[in-house]
């Protein structure tokens, strides 16, 4: 009953799939987010970018309900994630796929078993159908031939593609990518970018892409948020972001070593320190 209600709500068409309001989150005494507002449009790829250490991964964990904010709302289809009970949260998560930075593949399972894992856990499909579904997902990421390999035998790019196949195994509505391009060679980057775009368009997904690979993220995103110091410092389409004249955004986009984000970590006067 609960499952049916939630699934129906998930299918309710509203413009924003994810809506974040006044989000405040601390790690210890350090504020990570301070009254952050952000929206993710249905069917679009929304990129969340910003310097390292600004809490982009934390944002995905907050949206997925793995962390609870100190204040504010995180709504997915109108349901406020932080207030959900575990059963409701797990029901919502069945409609969310997440690609982790380390892929998060189960190291004791083969590629095939990894992709089959969510299907076996959440459905009672016959084994033959699970096999077909897994092969279809692996075909979508180009790794049908690697089904018998163990995660330790995969390259970084291949591991992310397998994780992507697993993330879309249950045909989610929302998929979140945590730094999918970090540490990848140019070919692997191209493959992953193409997959993100193709899967989003072909499967009608909504994607949140967390990255600090500026050119790559801007090339496929429909809308971009740039986050720094716990706030959104710029937002817009990729073109609007490219032409934004704010110094902090230009420093980030152009990769300038000094600017609003200083090169030097705060310290006392250099001369005083040496003497």
């Amino acid at each position, binding site marked *: 009953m609960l499952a049916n209600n939630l699934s129906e709500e998930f299918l309710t068409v509203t413009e924003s799939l994810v809506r974040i309001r006044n989000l405040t989150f601390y790690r210890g005494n350090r504020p990570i987010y301070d009254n952050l507002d952000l929206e993710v449009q249905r069917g679009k790829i929304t990129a969340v970018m910003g310097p390292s250490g600004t809490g982009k991964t934390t944002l995905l964990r907050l949206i997925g309900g793995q962390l609870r904010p100190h204040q504010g709302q995180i709504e997915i289809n109108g349901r406020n994630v932080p207030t959900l009970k575990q059963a409701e949260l*797990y029901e919502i*998560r069945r409609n*969310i796929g997440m690609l*982790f930075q380390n892929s*998060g*593949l189960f190291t004791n399972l083969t590629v095939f078993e990894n992709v089959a*894992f*969510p299907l076996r*856990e959440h459905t009672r499909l016959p084994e033959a159908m699970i096999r077909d579904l897994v092969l279809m997902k692996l075909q979508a990421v180009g790794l049908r031939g690697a089904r018998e390999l163990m995660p330790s035998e995969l390259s970084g790019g291949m591991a992310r593609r397998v994780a992507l196949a697993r993330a879309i195994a249950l045909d989610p509505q929302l998929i979140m990518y945590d730094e999918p391009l970090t540490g990848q060679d140019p070919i692997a980057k191209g493959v992953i970018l193409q997959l993100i775009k193709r899967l989003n368009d072909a499967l009608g997904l909504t994607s949140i892409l967390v990255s600090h690979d500026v050119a790559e993220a801007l090339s496929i995103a429909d809308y971009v948020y740039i986050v720094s110091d716990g706030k959104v410092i710029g937002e817009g389409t990729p073109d609007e972001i490219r032409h934004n004249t704010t110094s902090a955004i230009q420093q980030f986009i152009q990769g300038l070593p000094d600017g609003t984000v200083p090169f030097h970590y705060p310290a006392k006067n250099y001369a005083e320190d040496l003497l």
Partner: protein
Amino acid sequence: MINQLQSLGRISIDTCTSIGRSGLFLTQVLFRKPRIRRSFPLLIRELYSVGILSLPIILVAALFIGMVVALQGHNTLAKFGADAQMGQLLALSVVRELGPVVTALLFAGRAGSALTAEIGLMKTTEQLASMEMMAVDPLWRIVAPRFWAGFISMPILALIFNAVAIYGGSWVAIDWLGVTSGTFWSNMQAAVGFRVDIVSGIIKSLVFGLVIIWTAVYQGYDCVPTAEGMSRATTRTVVYASLMVLGLDFILTAMMLGDW
């Protein structure tokens, strides 16, 4: 002075917080809605890796410990012309103390550390987080089968330890040192009580098993997800579990030898 007081207070608060968190963790593992059809295959797999794979070290250790106890016992008892009591000495030492305690220490070192490292590595490589995001509860899927497998394995391993140690001791006493077989076994049979000795040993091993496996899975689940954090968690499992086993052994022995 104030700084020292502050440090003491901080350590006390951290310790209490940690104990409270581990207690809540244990409650969450113990009081889960049973899913027997899905959980049983997972339990069997973990019984193999936690219990069966611990067998070789338990068997070898038990054999040698039984042999050493027999040698040492004979050496002392012979001085008083009491070497006929060898069977009694061996059985009581092994069943009451050495069986549960040594098995527990070996179990903590072999299975406990392996469990902490395994769960800690799963946390460090985001396997637990990805499982959560797939709406699969890691406490049910990962922690509970390992917990129950450890809890079930420990008393069985202790009983196997007892049998093998007594066999090793009997081999040294009878076949090597020349103690009469009939005397050895009949004295042992007369001296060992089922409830007082064997059941006491089983109760001890159950308590030790609970403490070890609780420490191991909690330390793995709660570790800082870095290489150093995992290393510290694994060390903590072995140190905490071993010390708790020895402390609890004293308390349980005092209870069992008293009015119990």
